[in-house]
């Protein structure tokens, strides 16, 4: 078994100022296997991948490729040595054709025979069963196809090691299956695949082995059959955790007064981002959710509530009183907070410290001419770093150097500090680890039991079922149903999302 190892990493160390990101980590990838790399955010998965692909120079340890010790100097070098990476975000050029993307930077000489390249690209796409034409513009293909093209490029470069970093997070169920088929094909061809994901189901569907990291250290390497799901989770967390299904407390839900004046009420709210006018209300202590497929308008709806995009019309009432919400600051002043879907683009202010990121919203509400004193800001930051157990070297650490889950906690802290009556959380659990996911869901329910109203959006339906007491279902920019009580089950929700025939 050992002699078929295509990649061996021994005693890998990587340090960042004040942090030991990797400490003596071993990792072995065998020929023709799909190997899951698991761990919470900040466990060191990304760092290990980046060391392997030459993005970061390693500070200690050895890497062996097919028995030969190698030193990987740069991402280019890694590619030449047969290590290919496909990232979560597509790193190809959308304005070029599929074939151009597959061969860019790999042609020799100043002249290129594009006809020949197109035909060989076509052959490879056929062989791998990727439904794309070589001459098609990449930008016109779906995300899944784009990802597969990236993989095809890697395969054609004779890669021995293929790294897939969260490839499935923006794919739907069908597309995921297509990707898995492709992965299995490659596996049969002898390619070693490292698969990084947060979806446990997917790990058990395609992987052969699992390596678990925690706090920059190796926990262990396991054959998939020997490691049941619960054990995997407890290995990742380093503790046994209570069953997630039990976190909702029905007693709290019964306390909600649905006949009282809603905390927030929208009548005929019209956005400018392609959603139909809709009515919506939420009561004190209620957790509701917007659900629907990607692009159904669920995010656009909550953005309209917050005034994040231009609002074209409709009436908004806060505690029964009519108010105007035209921009985010209006919403914030009326006690509404909004945690945006895209953490990197809309949430964090990357170079600013954790402290500045936490106080930002409250500071803006307080006003331009009334800055918090340094001591006050430090107190706030300390309080929330403790409350949400945010893992950071210090308050002054730039937020961008935190792991995804901890960044999300900082943004949550920001909005909790603003002390809203109505909190909108758009995909707060996306791309973060199981442990933090559970923490956030528990926090949501705790806040609701304290009398806050919360809108919780998630792509994972079971997460919504666990936390929400009412679901607004959307399709094609329209609200197509509202589910509560016994209707809150997977089948009913699916049916409502898919077609309106359920009664």
């Amino acid at each position: 078994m050992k002699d078929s190892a295509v990649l061996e990493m021994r005693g890998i160390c990587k340090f960042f100022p004040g942090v030991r990101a990797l400490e003596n980590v071993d990792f072995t990838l065998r020929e023709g296997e799909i190997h899951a790399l698991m761990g919470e955010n900040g466990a060191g998965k990304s760092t290990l991948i980046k060391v392997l692909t030459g993005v970061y120079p390693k500070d200690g340890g050895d890497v062996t490729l097919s028995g030969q010790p190698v030193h990987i100097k740069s991402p280019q070098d890694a590619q030449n040595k047969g290590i290919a990476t496909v990232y979560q975000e597509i790193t190809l050029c959308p304005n070029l054709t599929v074939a151009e993307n597959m061969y860019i930077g790999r042609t020799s000489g100043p002249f290129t025979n594009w006809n020949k390249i197109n035909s060989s690209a076509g052959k490879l796409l056929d062989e791998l069963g990727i439904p794309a034409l070589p001459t098609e513009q990449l930008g016109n293909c779906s995300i899944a196809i784009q990802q597969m093209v990236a993989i095809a490029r890697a395969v054609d470069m004779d890669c021995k090691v293929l790294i897939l970093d969260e490839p499935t997070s923006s794919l739907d169920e069908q597309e995921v299956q297509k990707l898995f088929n492709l992965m299995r094909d490659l596996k049969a061809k002898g390619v070693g695949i490292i698969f990084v994901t947060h979806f446990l189901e997917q790990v058990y569907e395609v992987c052969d082995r699992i390596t678990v990291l925690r706090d920059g250290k190796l926990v262990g390497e396991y054959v998939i059959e020997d490691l049941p799901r619960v054990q995997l989770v407890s290995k990742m967390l380093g503790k046994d955790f209570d069953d997630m299904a039990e976190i909702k407390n029905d007693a709290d839900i019964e306390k909600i007064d649905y006949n009282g004046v809603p905390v927030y009420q929208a009548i005929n709210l019209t956005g400018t981002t392609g959603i139909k006018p809709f009515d919506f209300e939420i009561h004190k202590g209620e957790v509701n959710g917007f659900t629907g497929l990607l692009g159904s308008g669920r995010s656009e709806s909550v953005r309209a509530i917050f005034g994040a995009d231009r609002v074209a019309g409709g009436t908004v009432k806060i505690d029964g009183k009519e108010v105007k919400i035209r921009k985010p600051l209006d919403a914030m002043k009326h006690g509404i907070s909004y945690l945006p879907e895209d953490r990197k683009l809309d949430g964090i202010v990357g170079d600013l410290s954790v402290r500045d990121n936490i106080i930002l919203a409250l500071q803006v509400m307080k006003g331009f001419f009334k800055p918090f004193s340094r001591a006050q800001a430090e107190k706030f930051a300390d309080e929330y770093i403790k409350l949400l157990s945010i893992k950071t070297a210090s308050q002054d650490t730039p937020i961008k150097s935190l792991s995804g889950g901890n960044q999300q906690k900082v943004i949550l802290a920001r909005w909790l500090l603003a002390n809203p009556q109505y909190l909108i959380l758009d995909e707060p659990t996306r791309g973060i680890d199981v442990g933090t996911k559970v923490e956030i869901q528990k926090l949501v329910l705790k806040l609701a039991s304290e009398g806050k109203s919360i809108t919780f959006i998630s792509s994972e339906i079971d997460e919504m079922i666990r936390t929400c007491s009412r679901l607004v279902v959307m399709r094609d920019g329209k609200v197509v149903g509202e589910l509560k009580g016994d209707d809150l089950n997977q089948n009913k929700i699916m049916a409502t999302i898919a077609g309106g025939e359920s009664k």
Partner: protein
Amino acid sequence: MTTDTKVQSKGSAGEFFGKIIRNQLFIPIVALTLLVIFNLISDPGFFKIALEPSSTGNLILSGNLITIIDNASELVILAIGMTLVTSASGGQDISVGATIAIAGSTVLRIVKGYAPDIPGSQFAGMIIVSFLLCVVVSALFGAFNGALVAFFKIQPMVATLILFTAGRSIAAWINNNDNISINDKRFGYFGNFIPGIPVPTPVFITIFCIIVIALVLKFTNLRLYSQSVGINASSSRLNGINPKMIKLLTFVILGVCVAVCGFIKVSRTSSITYSVIANNIEMDAILAVALGGNNLGGGKFNLTSSVLGAYVIQFLTTTLYKFKEIDSSSISAYKAVVVILLIIISSPFVRKLIEDFKNKREAAKAEAAVGKEKA
């Protein structure tokens, strides 16, 4: 958390040194020190300061150091505004030289209409009016630049190219392209010396500007807002900040800085040459921001560092002028060489090399520790 304590506990000389290197003030301070040492060696009398009577009979301080601090005034004031614009908009204003010409021309337009020996109170009133008008005009031109950048989303360098090209013509047009020379001696006080005070007036004006901006940063959220907007405008907006207004605001502040510079400039010579006044000062101002270690792509900024950067540039210019063997036309080339060196030393690449070197050493230590444990 044993790892934390380990990392923190080595508060040794090495750690202290590392901290200094990472500090933004490191490069400008090193550059200043090098210039001082260089000048001390090549000419021990370089830093001599003397109190001597000037041509008008007043006792004034003279010496290279005084010249540097005096001549750097406009650059320092501009660097303040340029730093803020850079932070919020992620670009630079290249029209400041031309708008200084406009500001100076505006001042002269008012002042030239008065007889040279009007009584003191009337003179003061005229100066105040001319200065206020100059501030308003410069702020409006700043707002014009800012509006192009904030509302029309034009890249700052392209947007300010308009006034860069047109500014000096506008300045000439304000005074019908007349050659103006103000004969009232009192007008020269602001760019030279006030009788009885041995320190050049621009130095006081600079100090005043620095104090004002320090107070503004302390008592408003300008720093937090412009940094957030510069780093991530989209999330700033979702946190209730209006990125457009902040960008506009920084351009208006730069406009006010330009007004002060224009006023000092025309007062220095009591006259104006539209095509020459404050020539190429925009490049020095941008350089000051860069030398201060500020990211020209926007975001985090350090004003102290920019101000020091401005003094470094003036120091360098004066030092080069001191060398008689250097032809004055080739000074720019010498300046460029020094600047390239400074920029390379402060580049992320060199900083990363130092960082990597430190990490390697720490890794070796950690490995040794593990080895000991096993043994």
